């Protein structure tokens, strides 16, 4: 199994509190990895460290064998937690802007995804509902030709239809090409079938990880394991 991202004894301090504590993990290449944990478990921090939005207080991180930094970010499409897009853009303008600022942005694909996600390219970003806003951001993120996708809570707090559409788009992407994708979530109902690898994060530490089917054979459904771990 080749590895996309590695954490070696990483700690990250936020003020006085440790968001990550002596955390070591590896994220497999070419697989869909689920990063599961309650709010405040350190999921967002972990993804931010991969994109070098923060620097670890202690320890070492390797992304495709390199230290995180703006250069490696060329290979990463990151969607932050509770992120939105510039509200003064129209959807059309958002795609134009994304094409300009993201290397290897596939405009044609973005346009196909727009149809798939039932978004009107004339609409203003500021007028979109939460779910539509997330759909747009998924399009902007997934239309980038990169080696690693990081999606922080792409399903939380949005409507059912949008959640279904987002999952459909993710499955669509996964069946088109082999991609490494990390999705953090605490809503596992809809994502049960999506993941191949799982990492359970609790209070800044990895408490369980492994291949999903192996975990299922050994311990049952992800929902069940999740309850066991977090209760």
């Amino acid at each position, binding site marked *: 199994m080749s590895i996309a991202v590695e954490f070696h004894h990483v700690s990250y301090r936020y003020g006085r509190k440790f968001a990550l504590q002596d955390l070591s993990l590896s994220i497999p290449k070419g697989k869909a990895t689920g990063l599961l944990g309650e709010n405040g478990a350190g999921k967002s921090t972990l993804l931010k460290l991969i994109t070098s939005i923060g620097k670890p207080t202690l320890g070492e991180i390797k992304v495709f064998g390199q230290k995180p930094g703006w250069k490696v*970010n060329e290979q990463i499409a990151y969607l932050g937690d509770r992120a*939105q897009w510039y509200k003064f853009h129209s959807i059309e303008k958002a795609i134009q802007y994304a094409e*300009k600022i993201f290397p290897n942005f596939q405009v044609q694909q973005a346009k196909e995804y727009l149809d798939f996600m039932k978004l009107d390219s004339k609409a203003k970003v500021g007028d979109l509902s939460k779910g539509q806003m997330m759909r747009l951001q998924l399009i902007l993120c997934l239309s980038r030709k990169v080696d690693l996708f990081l999606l922080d809570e792409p399903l939380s707090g949005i409507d059912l239809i949008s959640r279904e559409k987002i999952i459909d788009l993710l499955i669509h992407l996964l069946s088109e090409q082999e991609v490494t994708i990390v999705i953090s979530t605490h809503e596992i109902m809809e994502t049960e079938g999506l993941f191949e690898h799982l990492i359970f994060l609790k209070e800044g530490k990895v408490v369980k990880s492994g291949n999903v089917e192996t975990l299922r054979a050994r311990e049952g459904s992800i929902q069940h394991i999740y309850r066991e771990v977090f209760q």
Partner: protein
Amino acid sequence: MNAFWSIVKNDFRMVFPKKYIFPLTSMLIGGTIFGVLCSLLNFTQIKPEIHWVYTWILFALPGFTTGIVMAEEREKTLGWWLSLPYPRHWLIAAKCIAMLLRALQIILILFLFTNFILYLFTWIRPEAYENIAWGELFYYQLMIIGERLIYVPLIITLGLLAGLLTFSSMKLLNIPIWIFFGLFVSFIVLRHVSKVSRLDWDIVNIPLIWIGLFSFLISLLFYYWSISILNRKLQI
């Protein structure tokens, strides 16, 4: 480089969201018309000081600049912005250039507007400006603008730094930064007042070149400090 200018353009639009442009412009025009009417009808003996047309920008600029940094938070686009695959100094430079272009744009609009009105004055009520020819007032304004522009880099980088500090673990450093700003603009205003009123304070004797050099060095300091915050000190 294409990407860089696209970011500058986007930042430029973020300085004033479109919805603020109309109220601001109407306030400017409304205020001026009111002032001009008062002056023409001789309601007031107060002669407006021309330099304030440009000096106020120095006070407002750090606010605007802090604004384009905070805008990334307001728009909830910090994640997109900070994960861009470009060197950190691009992100900083783009915001500085965007702000500089906005400042120049505002100055140009004010310059045209003011000269139009001054021209009217020198024609209708020349005594309001002590019968000074319009051409001379025009030249005087260019001097003022030139001098104010020397301070602009320092003030822009200061605003940017102050904005970024709010995302870092060193938020409290904002207090000395703003105190420094207060001292700096007071100095500029005092220097102007003492020069105009011929008070012969010592500060007038500091040659502009030194002030310019000081301003340039401090803005470099703020610029690199901002980059280092992005690189190492973010806590979001």
